[in-house]
């Protein structure tokens, strides 16, 4: 069915205006990151000349590369940990029948009711007592177990026909082999979705890295940005914006590439 021209024009206008409003803060920051201080002070919108000075400064004055490396390590560790633990748990909930399974599943669902923010005091003490302050394991391991991921993968694994499992048993295939060679490859799409989601949320984590790190050696980019913002009181907005742009580039790329999958996957998890 074709749309009337009038409706098309109205829609495009709404889309363009909304996009401009919504993307304005990001565009402004991006533009400022290429400006000289003078341009910023005089309230320019577009830089008079594009300069990479701010980027140069931010890398020179801050261990930003190290922060980025730390964030990568922590985010990838959390992503892999979540994928492994959630898929193992989901496998047990779908393919292994044992006593107490339903109770355990209910317990998993119940963990979604406990906000991490309410647990920071004992968790901080645990990490401290383990000597894990300023360490990759302290930043990542508390987030490995994940009810939402288990739930999402369970929905997905359920679509694998039971006959396949029965056939594999007759063929003498063990559970571990079935999990590795049949279930994981079939659920590839959901695993990717969950992985993207895990990476995004870990990269953007703020409160826990703030508590669990005290020195620059293990600090993540988000806390680095906090440091940058609070130390640069000289109104060097260009440098701060350059730092912020560098921090959001990896996640924005990931989001733009995986947007469609993420949307389908999250909607699935929401509705089933």
């Amino acid at each position, binding site marked *: 069915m074709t749309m009337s021209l009038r409706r098309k024009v109205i829609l495009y206008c709404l889309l363009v205006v909304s996009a401009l409003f919504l993307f304005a803060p990001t565009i402004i920051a991006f533009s400022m990151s290429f400006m000289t201080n003078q341009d910023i002070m005089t309230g320019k919108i577009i830089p008079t000349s594009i300069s990479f000075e701010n980027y140069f400064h931010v890398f020179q004055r801050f261990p930003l590369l190290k922060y980025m490396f730390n964030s990568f390590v922590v985010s990838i560790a959390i992503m892999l940990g979540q994928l492994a633990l959630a898929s193992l748990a989901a496998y*047990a909930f779908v393919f*292994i*029948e044992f006593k107490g399974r339903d109770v355990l599943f209910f317990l998993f669902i119940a963990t979604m009711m406990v906000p991490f923010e309410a647990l920071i005091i004992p968790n901080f003490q645990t990490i401290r007592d383990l000597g894990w302050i300023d360490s990759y394991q302290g930043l990542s391991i508390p987030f490995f177990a994940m009810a939402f991921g288990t739930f999402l993968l369970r929905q997905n694994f359920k679509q694998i026909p039971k006959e396949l499992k029965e056939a594999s048993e007759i063929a003498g295939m063990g559970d571990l082999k079935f999990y590795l060679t049949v279930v994981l490859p079939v659920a590839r799409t959901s695993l990717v979705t969950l992985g993207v989601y895990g990476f995004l949320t870990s990269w953007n984590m703020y*409160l826990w890295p703030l508590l669990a790190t005290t020195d620059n050696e293990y600090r993540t980019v988000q806390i680095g940005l906090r440091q940058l913002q609070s130390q640069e009181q000289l109104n060097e907005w260009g440098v701060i914006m350059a*730092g*912020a742009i560098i921090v*959001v580039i990896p996640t924005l790329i990931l989001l733009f590439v995986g947007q469609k999958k993420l949307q389908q996957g999250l909607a699935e998890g929401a*509705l089933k």
Partner: protein
Amino acid sequence: MNQLAIPHDHLETLELKNTLKKQKILRWLKGMLFLAPSIILFSIFLFYPLARSIYLSFFLTNNTGVPTVFVGFENYINIFTSPIFRNSLQSTFLFVLYTVPGAIIISLFLAIIANEKLKGIGFFRTMFSSTMGISVAAASVFWMFLFHPTMGWLNQILSYVGVDAIGWLTDPKWALLSVSISTIWMNIGFTFLILLGGLQSIDRYLYESADIDGAGYFYQLRRITLPMLSPTLFFVITVALINAFQTFGQIDMLTRGGPQNQTNLLVYSIYREAFMNYQYGPASAQAIVLFIIILIITLIQFKLGERKVHYQ
């Protein structure tokens, strides 16, 4: 023969029972083995700290968090009579009231206009979901500049139209609203993405038959789109409520709870009490209040969700 057969039979079933039992135990062990990593980590980083928080909330502690004096419900009585904490609760509820409807209404509008089949719609969808990829810290930096008293765009625009400058983050009357505006912006990406997914799963056929019946655009919106979207909307509202109560990053970056404690939201208040004032007991009591609020929201969701959502 018969006399012999009975015990033999009996023996066989016994054996069968034994092997069945063995298999049952084996299956149980296998199941637990697959679940063990998750169960162990949940125990260490979720169940234990929950119990420990409840325990700590009945004690006063020393500076390192070791409980020293049992005080019963005194921590709870103290926080609920403290004007600072009551103010914090009030700010938190106001913040929820501003941000949840704000983000959902804007995202719903964006999702509806981005659900049309138009050329280049993918570009707009990407734009609208973009704030999901921007971290709280980075978004706070962006908004920090927009809110800047002299150079910030918001005050520049105000002065352009001849209105006095506003102390967005420094005026106690405005600070909570300013933080809410920036939070709505941060949350639009995720909310939009989920709502768009919900819209796309609505059967096209419904609209086609409505078109044949000559139903107008807004009639279809009211009678088809919104009812069909209600399960998704319901989910999004719950997630947004929970997220709003857990807000921390933008407060830490933009206002540090000020001015005059106007933006001292619940999680920031817990953080300040525990990690700046070293009052772990009262801080734990606040954490339990947060837990109970979230618990109530999720329980309501489960109860209402059972009725509303159709399972396939």
